């Protein structure tokens, strides 16, 4: 008998009485916080992100120029998402004398070596959660996973209407079907407390996270 068959056989032959209904639907507590942009900003800030509310993508572009200049960044990697296309990256590159590469222009092996050297990664997001100040990334060839993880500084652009109330809303969206290979919920900055309980930011992920809330 295979291990699979043996395990399932043992589970199925348990003699204690199981409820006859195959699966009860339980009610999780009603939403535990009511969310809005203000809440998203305060929660994301508390988690260690720097959050800025801006009126337009032009403003995002201006702020990015400042960041690149202040941090003297040489290489920037951006995803191939629709809302990022409205930013004039060529102009930004010229203004800051930095190299900006979209993952769409980078063939596989070049992408990997570029992304680990980039000082700044910029992505959009699919959703955000007000409850926890989380950005929800849907990964695909237009939003590769390491763009938001390998660079020291990660910038995420969130549109106001992408902000959902909480994880339960996200769960219902996920439960109605997932087609992408991976999703990541990012809340603030990577951290550890493994050295004698001292919280240190920037363990294996970005040391700095900036979120622009647009609109």
């Amino acid at each position, binding site marked *: 008998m295979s*291990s699979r068959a043996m*395990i399932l056989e043992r*589970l199925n032959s348990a003699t204690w009485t199981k409820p006859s209904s195959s*699966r009860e639907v339980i009610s999780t507590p009603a939403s535990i916080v009511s969310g809005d942009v203000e809440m998203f900003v305060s929660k994301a800030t508390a988690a260690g992100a720097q959050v800025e509310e801006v009126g337009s993508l032009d403003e995002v572009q201006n702020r990015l120029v400042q960041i690149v200049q202040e941090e003297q960044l040489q290489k920037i990697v951006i995803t191939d998402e629709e809302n990022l296309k409205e930013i004039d990256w060529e102009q930004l590159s010229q203004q800051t004398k930095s190299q900006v590469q979209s993952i769409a222009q980078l063939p596989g092996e070049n992408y990997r070596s570029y992304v680990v050297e980039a000082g700044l990664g910029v992505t959009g997001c699919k959703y955000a959660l007000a409850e926890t100040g989380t950005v929800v990334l849907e990964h695909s060839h237009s939003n590769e996973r390491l763009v938001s993880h390998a660079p020291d500084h990660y910038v995420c652009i969130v549109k106001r209407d992408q902000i959902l109330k909480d994880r339960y809303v996200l769960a219902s969206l996920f439960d109605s079907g997932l087609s992408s290979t*991976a999703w990541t919920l990012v809340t603030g900055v990577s951290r550890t407390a493994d050295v004698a309980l001292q919280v240190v930011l920037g363990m*294996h*992920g970005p040391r700095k996270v900036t979120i622009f809330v647009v609109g």
Partner: protein
Amino acid sequence: MDLRPENFQSVAEIEVAKVAQRDFVVMVAGVFNYLCDTAMTAYGDGSAQDEARAAGAQIRTNSLNNLAELLQEFETNANRNGIQVLWAADAEEACQLVKGLVEKHQVKTISKGKSMISEEIGLNHFLEKEAGVKIYEGDLGEFIVQLRGTLPFHIVGPAINMTVQEIAGVLQQHIDMPYTEVATEIVSYVRTYLRDKFERADMGITGVNQAIASTGSLMLVENEGNIRWVTSAPRVHVALMSIEKVCANFADAFHLLGLLTRNCTGQAITSYVSVLNGPRRAEEVDGPEAMYVVIIDNGRSIAYQDPLLKDALRCIRCGRCGIQCPIYLRIGANPYGWIYPGPIGNVIAPVIMDLDRTRDLYEACTLCGGCQSVCPSGMSHLDIMTHYRQMKVKGDDRFGGTRICIKERSGFKILARGMQNPGLYKAGVKIARRFLNQRSQDGYITQMPGPMSGWFRCRDFPEMPEKTFRQRWQDELQEEARQTADRAVAHPEAAAQNEEG
């Protein structure tokens, strides 16, 4: 120190004397308890928090009631997503399966996300020895423990008992870190050291926090970002899960996630939650080209058949019960002699090892109930531990429990008879008092000859008072009656008024 559950008592004697470690751990537990209690207030007042925990318990009940069905549903959907699902009856088979994948994909180096099940099956040791691969733990605490070659101290904070000096010493010795006691510098050095390993690893190995049956997805939870590397950079991803880590859907998974993180680190959510649905597609670069899930039994399906022991599978590994446990906080992790210390070890170890080897674990519990009062998955630690004790007394073939010896059985029989008969009980107390108090020193009996010597080896017992509670109670009643009578003689009018009133 030979750390095995069989050596619980001797190791506990050593550990309990480490006062500085104990004070530090108690302080850490206090901080975490405060953080967790504060985080739970997000659900509302006490009753709202109870409701949230009850919902968590109900989710686990549903998962366990439908375990076979959910595992098959998960397998079907995971296969559809391109994830290959393998099943292992025990630790040996699980290790062999992973070794097979290492060979198939010509793996030389492996990066790992923190995974308790991989520790449980001894995967690192096996692969390094049998497959000649190099393995790097990605979680900082786990990495330190790996270099040091010791057991994790806590299921969430593996090196949380170590001082900065000890950590710096280990890293200096094993990976040439220039000695520093500055936490940010330590973190920065390890970040750079491991980043290189993450980028080059051929295979990533992780555990699974929840497998979602309805979509065939995996949910993985972390703060450091090592799991994101381990599941994004290598060519192959192998996820290990024990059979109980499955839930019906995302509504369930996200509710458990909230309870897990709030009771683990006191966070509403961790820095990263990864939801993985399959290997990368043709046009994608990040993510593995091949993805496997190994579903591991290792004794659990036998426990599942027992109506009470199946509840040992409720645990979602938040670690909250550990920091509530007065025993664990005083003796630390080492005496448990295995990777799950504290109450969760007491509950899980006997079904995975056996009742004889782990006897001291479930017998060392004081049954104070601190653990189950905070558990978000509805675990009845006390029922399970008393059940183990009964099984051990009676003997149980399924879990390697030999019946206790004739001397012990006879002792308990005599005790039971005495407890049922007030006359015998009184007489027994008299004899016991004389016998015990003869051996008392400074008000405590610390050793005993003969068959009781084992019991006293790691316990002491206060001297028995001259009078039992019942005698003192009767004496007090008599004294009160005497005083009332005296007052009546001295002030007859007042006594008469009192009576009328």
